[in-house]
């Protein structure tokens, strides 16, 4: 029973998903399936509440040590429950009663969240793999949900084929790590590396392959290629979920593997992640510059934001882990928020998604325009938003660990980012052009208002009073006892190196 408490949010989400499916089957054919969405929302709310409640559990493992609830996994449980809650609300707003397969869509969102949550709490690579597949396969399916359009199935296909391709690399990596250490438990791997003298060649190569697989899932460049195409084709409410949830979960896994299983090898994975961070930030921001489609632009921006989170990874300190976790939250808040508006404005069938289509939106609907501006400002990283503090912590942590160049590159990138975000802001507040059709904006539904309220409140709170979330993130970081040792010595020498013109 005690074991079940440790996976209670997952159980609740599964039950809610099953309930949605059963209700879907029981409801008479012609009636609207939208009520199922509210059922799913209830399930997500319950999961969110239980996730919060899990903070009271003493840290520990369950089911013979395959899952572990600790401050880290509970932190991500709460985050993922929040994401899926907001995404469900966005979906409720975007779909019409006639939309096909609504029941399945809501159930898939809930089931996907089960996988994401398990990813964050799994300490056995086998469970990580199964959970990763749950989250991935459900997103593959959801990406292709708009079957009538030409783009949506293509998006699903690209995501599916390339995702499975990357998963094979991930699996091979696990196999090699297993070959080197003889175990697939996170703690076992760390022990094996610390006590025995495992074959380092296998470990290195295994580690690299694991990073390939997870790098794909978090859309870190150069493994990002799928992202713009998939985001463009997938239904917008689904993108709200899949650009944040699986990403956060994959980052949780990456953090757990890097800091939990392979802390001894940090000299090897830090440079890799260093480069991934630089390339991701640069490619993401440069790629976004040219985009005329808002969803593609946001896809590139999500690549860039993955880069910022990776910056925190390399900091090799409790602060770094906390910053990465914090950034995941603030990114989720603002990105889900902006997709709430994109999906409302563009509709489930994405009839208008170009930046030019957004011209004058703010004058026709001040609420949507204002909210979108706020999220864009947060994405740029202006103070009093979650986006600013996310970047602030990330770069503070990086500089604290002597990554001065990384921080400089990151800041230059966040400057470039202002260009393309501002383009949308300018479009929002300019006169709509005569040539382009006007974006017809329906009245926002209660669900959308709720979603916007949740995400904008979260973004604002993260910017003004981030104390609680930051404490939670720091508590999460403390889970990895190995971190912090490296950060004990301030890297004054390296900082001086900059000033002397290195």
């Amino acid at each position, binding site marked *: 029973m005690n074991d079940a408490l440790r996976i209670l949010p997952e159980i609740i989400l599964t039950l809610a998903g099953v309930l949605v499916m059963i209700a879907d089957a029981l409801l008479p054919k012609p009636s609207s399936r939208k009520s199922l969405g509210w059922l799913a929302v209830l399930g997500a709310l319950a999961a969110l509440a239980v996730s919060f409640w899990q903070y009271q559990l003493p840290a520990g493992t369950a089911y013979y040590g395959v899952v572990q609830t600790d401050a880290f996994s509970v932190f991500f449980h709460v985050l993922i429950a929040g994401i899926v809650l907001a995404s469900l609300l966005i979906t409720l707003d975007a779909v019409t009663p006639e939309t096909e397969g609504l029941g399945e869509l809501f159930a898939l969102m809930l089931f996907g969240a089960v996988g994401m949550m398990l990813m964050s709490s799994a300490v056995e690579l*086998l469970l990580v*793999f*199964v959970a990763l*597949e749950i989250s991935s*396969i459900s997103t*593959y*399916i959801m990406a*292709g949900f708009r*079957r*009538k*359009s*030409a*783009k*949506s*199935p*293509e*998006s*699903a*296909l*690209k995501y*599916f*084929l390339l995702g*499975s*391709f990357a998963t*094979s690399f991930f*699996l*091979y990596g*696990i*196999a*090699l790590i*297993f*070959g080197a250490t*003889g*175990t*697939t438990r996170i703690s076992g791997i760390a022990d094996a590396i610390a006590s025995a003298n495992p074959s380092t060649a296998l470990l290195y190569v295994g580690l690299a392959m694991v990073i390939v697989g997870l790098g794909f899932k978090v859309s870190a460049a150069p493994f990002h290629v799928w992202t*713009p*195409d998939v985001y*463009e*084709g997938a239904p917008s409410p689904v993108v709200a979920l899949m650009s944040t949830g699986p990403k956060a979960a994959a980052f949780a896994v990456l953090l757990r593997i890097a800091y939990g299983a392979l802390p001894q090898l940090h000299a090897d994975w830090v440079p890799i992640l260093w480069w991934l961070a630089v390339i991701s930030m640069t490619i993401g921001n440069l790629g976004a510059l*040219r985009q005329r489609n808002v969803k593609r632009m946001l896809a590139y921006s999500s690549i860039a934001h993955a880069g910022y989170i990776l910056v925190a990874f390399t900091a090799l300190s409790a602060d770094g882990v906390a910053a990465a976790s914090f950034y995941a939250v603030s990114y989720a808040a603002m990105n889900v928020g902006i997709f709430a508006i994109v999906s409302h404005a563009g509709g489930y069938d994405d009839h208008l998604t170009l930046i030019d289509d957004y011209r004058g939106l703010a004058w026709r609907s001040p609420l949507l325009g204002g909210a979108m501006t706020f999220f864009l400002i947060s994405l740029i990283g202006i103070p009093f938003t979650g986006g600013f503090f996310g970047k602030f912590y990330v770069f503070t942590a990086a500089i604290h660990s002597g990554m001065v160049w990384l921080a400089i590159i990151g800041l230059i990138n966040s400057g470039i980012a202002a260009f393309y975000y501002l383009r949308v802001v300018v479009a929002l507040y300019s006169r709509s052009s005569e040539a382009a059709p006007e974006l017809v904006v329906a009245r926002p539904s209660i669900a959308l208002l709720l979603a916007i309220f949740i995400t904008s409140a979260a973004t604002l709170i993260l910017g003004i009073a981030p104390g609680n979330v930051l404490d939670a993130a720091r508590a999460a970081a403390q889970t990895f006892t190995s971190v912090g040792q490296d950060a004990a010595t301030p890297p004054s020498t390296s900082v001086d190196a900059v000033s002397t013109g290195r």
Partner: protein
Amino acid sequence: MVPIAYYLVLSAVLFSIGVAAFLIKRNIITVFMSIELMLNAVNLAFIAFSRQWSQTTGHLQVNGQIFVFFVMVVAAAEAAVGLAIIIAVFRARNTLNVDQIDLMKL
């Protein structure tokens, strides 16, 4: 008596052929098959490593084999979903050629 390394090399060969097949094949279904080939290569590696650790520790280790069991389950699920996606793509675009599935770009 066969060095376990041979099994591992075989798995590497199969994996690389899988990668190459993914790059060469134009039919989506065959591309998907090459992913199955890659997964099979990984399975072989798992079983070989499992055997190696049995020998290293001196008693039977089945962890790697269990992993293979799960990979098979996942592969089955993936196959169902993947083929459904392929059917959906075929209906939407009336082609099975990957080179023609490039509506979204740049």
